[in-house]
């Protein structure tokens, strides 16, 4: 390949100059065309969400009588929809529930996953490869194959409807991805560092806590943000496994609102944006980490 490249670079200066000139004008046109196509696509992607957002800020009477795209003709805005949804529809309770569910369900799989990933990446024992590749296979396992027996187990251990039931489920379901991501990261840490610490007489647990974890903060941040958003957005596990309406998170509440008041768009729109608020904030503050966590193993779920 390098031979071909060098042969391209030869040829008379004259030829190269003229071909460059036409190429650069062609490139400018191409750039303009690409910008137009991308602007169109970006608009197509933006408009559906933007329309709902505008609707969430319009008075109910306006929503029923004119489309949101007429907002420029009838510019009237209100926060009333948000106060109704957060107040009389208990979305503030659901909001709190989402946090109560999500925070432990983010910390636990990272902690347990990091321990397991350390064993798989940094310790040498028989069976570790088998465990690792089983974890990769489990990443693809559909949760549909687990829900009914998990429900039965929850009732046998009297956990039905408790916070701990949903925390443990999210932890278990989050573990394969956590182990996969962290093991990949731990495996790239310099081996000499760990060996030196071992020779100095440090225990495995202290190497894990004092060396491996501090060096892995970026990976843990990516994983944490990804797991947080994934649990926050989860509908199915909460709907199936958390058999207690008082503890439902925002996603389940929003789904209920859609079933009950399928055409009260003022409530649906503001409810949807309440549920989106936290992921949106996380995204805008920590976009880089989130994208990294997501692309590291796009197979979760």
């Amino acid at each position, binding site marked *: 390949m390098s031979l071909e490249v060098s042969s391209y670079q030869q040829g008379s200066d004259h030829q190269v100059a003229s071909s460059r000139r036409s190429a650069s004008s062609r490139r400018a046109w191409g750039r303009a065309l690409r910008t137009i196509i991308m602007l169109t696509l970006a608009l197509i992607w933006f408009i559906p969400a933007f329309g709902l957002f505008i609707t969430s800020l319009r008075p109910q009477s306006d929503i029923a009588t004119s489309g949101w795209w007429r907002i420029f003709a009838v510019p009237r805005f209100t926060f009333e929809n948000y106060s109704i949804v957060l107040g009389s529809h208990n979305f503030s309770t659901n909001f709190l529930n989402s946090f109560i569910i999500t925070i432990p369900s983010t910390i636990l799989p990272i902690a347990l996953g990091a321990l397991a990933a350390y064993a798989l990446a940094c310790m040498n024992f028989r069976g570790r490869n088998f465990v690792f590749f089983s974890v990769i296979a489990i990443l693809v396992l559909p949760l549909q194959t687990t829900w009914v027996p998990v429900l039965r187990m929850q009732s046998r251990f009297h956990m039905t409807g408790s916070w701990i039931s949903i925390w443990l489920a999210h932890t278990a379901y989050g573990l394969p991805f956590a182990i*996969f991501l962290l093991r990949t990261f731990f495996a790239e840490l310099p081996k000499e560092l760990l060996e030196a610490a071992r020779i100095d007489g440090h225990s495995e647990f202290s190497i894990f806590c004092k060396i491996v974890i501090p060096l892995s903060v970026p990976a843990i941040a990516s994983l944490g943000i990804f797991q947080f958003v994934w649990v926050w*957005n989860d509908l199915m596990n909460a709907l199936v496994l958390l058999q207690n309406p008082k503890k439902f998170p925002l996603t389940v509440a929003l789904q209920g609102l859609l079933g009950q008041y399928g055409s009260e768009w003022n409530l649906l729109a503001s409810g949807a944006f309440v549920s989106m608020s936290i992921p949106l904030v996380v995204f805008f503050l920590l976009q880089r980490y989130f994208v990294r966590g997501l692309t590291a193993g796009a197979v979760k779920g």
Partner: protein
Amino acid sequence: MKVKRDSIQGWLFLAPALILLVAYLVYPCLSTLKMSFYGGQGFSPKRFVGFANYARLLGGGDSLFLNLKWPPSGALINNILWILFFAGGTVVIGLAIAVLADGLRLEKIFKSLIFLPMIISATAASVIFRFLYSPDPHIGLLNAFISSISPGKKPIPWLGSTDIVNIALIGAGIWIWTGLSMTVLSAAYKSLDREILEAAKVDGASSWTCFWRISLPMLEDQIVFVAITMIINSLKLVDLVLVMTGGGPMGSSRTIGFSFYWEVFNNNLVGYGSAIAMILLILLIPFMVFQVRRIKAQESYQ
């Protein structure tokens, strides 16, 4: 001696994770396999029926799962549509964006906008699309747009017609998931060897030729990876279907993952639903093997 101590310590580090994985994933999966051979209503089906659930599902006995009469329909066929148009759509559009947006001044903003749906819940995305698809002329932008270009035309019931509903759902799916495909393929495209592309351009190859002859073949691995991720997603899919259509109208938008949910939690047919979950698992096994092989290859490469 050291190896033995290492071994005990290793398993101790693994223990908490392994206990949860076995309790919540491995054992339940085996238990569901066993239940798939039982029939009847209720949460602990007692009547052993052998392969009857599978025979009914795959033999055309349940037209909402697999209708073998022409034209074929049902959840299994819908999933083929999802694989073709959803996996195909996200890969093609994601790749197009990765290539077209590359190097533009507004690249970051374009890509952030298209990525945004990835971070909201499927429930919220469903609200957005039920709003967009609404037949009410004051609510649904699509129908308002259509009636503004051809006045007098009846609004299209995007989610209410058995012919269009799957494509409408797939459209929402593409809106959600293209961001992922774009991100993976854009990173891969940016890491391509620029010298080769520049050299081909100096030699007079058009951008079009460069893309088809050079970039595309070099992106093959990542394209396959993204396509398989999307196929896995579409097979497991429940929430989008549940919130947008509840599988309707008349069961016409069911997917395999949704059918499981409906039979178990709506119709209380746990054994029958378990057989659907097992069919889903069997369909996913080739992708499981693919993922394990892919990771194994990466490991030996390092």
